[in-house]
């Protein structure tokens, strides 16, 4: 249930975002999801893509600081309180959320929530036990 995500260190300067994305485009690597965390002097680019291993090898080879982390995709029911139930399960299991963002699922046209947990294994176990649907990697792209 864990999905690999690439993160790339970016400096806070013009064209910092362009360069790694240009490199992926040149290698004909398509991205499925993207999120950017920014601080006053640096940013962290987070990318979800089918070809994550090839993308990692390419970016690392070019000298970018790249790290792979395990994400969990949760299919949140689209009605009031849909997210609340998921969060309550995580709270009850004392699982910390590092960050999260929305991801558009091509098949079915839904939006799922992509979570970065401090302890992804504990999170997956808690969500599964509560019957919350998670989306496996092969259904994402």
């Amino acid at each position, binding site marked *: 249930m864990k999905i690999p995500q690439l*993160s790339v260190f970016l400096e806070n300067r013009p064209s910092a975002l362009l360069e790694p994305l240009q490199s992926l485009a040149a290698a004909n690597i398509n991205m499925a999801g993207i999120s950017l965390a920014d601080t006053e002097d640096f940013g962290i680019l987070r990318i979800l893509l089918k070809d994550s291993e090839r993308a990692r090898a390419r970016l690392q080879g070019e000298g970018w600081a790249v790290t792979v982390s395990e994400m969990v995709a949760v299919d949140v029911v689209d009605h009031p309180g849909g997210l609340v139930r998921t969060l309550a399960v995580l709270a009850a299991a004392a699982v910390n959320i590092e960050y999260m963002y929305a991801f558009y699922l091509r098949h079915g046209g839904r939006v799922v929530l992509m979570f*970065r947990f401090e302890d992804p294994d504990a999170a997956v176990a808690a969500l599964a036990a509560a019957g919350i649907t998670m989306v496996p990697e092969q259904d994402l792209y």
Partner: protein
Amino acid sequence: MLKERWNDAAGGFHSVSAPDFLPEAQLREVQLRRLQAIVTRAWKNVPLFRQRLDERGLTPDDIQSLADIAKLPFTVKTDLRDTYPFGLFASPMEDVVRLHASSGTTGKPIVVAYTEEDVQVWTEVMARTFAACTLHRGDIMQNSFGYGLFTGGLGTHYGAEALGAAVIPVSGGNTERQIMLLRDFGVTAICATPSFFVHLVDKAIEMGVDLKTLPLRVGVFGAEPWTDGMRERIQIDAGIEAFDIYGLSEITGPGVASECSEHEGLHVFEDHFYPEIIDPVTGQPLPDGEEGELVLTTLSKKAMPMIRYRTRDITAIITERCGCGRTLRRIRRISRRSDDMFIIRGVNVFPSQVEAALLQVEGTLPHYQIILTRTQGLDQMTVEVEVTPEVFSDKVRAMEELRSRIAHAIEHILGIRVGLRLVGPHSIPRSEGKARRVIDKRND
């Protein structure tokens, strides 16, 4: 010819090292005799030197003991610039066989000259350097010091050949090819600046080459100050024994002093280069053991004698006998230069202090740069530190923590507030010679 002279011992003790073990009384005698001869030579042939002795009412006869050296005037770097290009030569061009020059990054270059005998002495002290660094016949030495006007490349080249090692004159730069040669040729020893070698280690990791598994066993590093922390990192990451060597073009180039296997300071080849330590402010000689500026006198250099040359390097003389048995006195590892120092908000700062702080913070390789700026009359110091893949995290919190850990470590050592910016890998220009650690924009 030189090879035949020195290659008679194949392994273990090499006869070229014999002068390293001269009994002390004999060494002092040799030094005094050579000092008297070199002062006479400079007095006869170098007008600037003669004029300075005249001003002080001195003649070569006033040098009756080694202690008398303190009567003599200093030579400083600007003397070489002021007499550019050949004003300090003591030999006619007919006797000069080699000219080297500094790269001239600050103003005019300085020019140094060698007679055939000077090149032989240089070769000998470099062979003694490599012998002290455990090299021997059969070693394959990759020489990554720059060949050309810089003395590093050719000095180490001649010395290693004289010892009987096989030299690969690869020079600086072209990191990927360097790693290929290291691997394919089964290189056992490398000469480089420490900052270039760190760059090489990083690149090898990127290329998937594990230096630890290669035959490489010895690294001989010099041409810029480096710290023991950096040495540890190099030794662990590359699986080698790292030796520090010291030299400067004005004196001969590399080959002035070298570590031995004890790694407790660098033996000065003082039968050719006489060391003194002075107070850099007053110019007064300091007793052995006290820290100050290193002053060197070339005892045998024909083409361009340097009398009491102020090196600007800060160190101390160690007089205790070394475990290796060499009678040559040692200097402590040089980690700073009096002209590397900068003053910010009244505090003296050496780049080596910043480096020590960086090394304290786990996982930070020392690729950094110090930027000095002035905003509304107030000096600001910003340290740019490259993020390595090892310390990079996708969590903003972890990166902010890393940044504040490094900033605190630096502030703790310097006692002043500094700005700290994390920058991308390889965004700080790499040196293929000496690292440029400080960018001072305060007067821009």
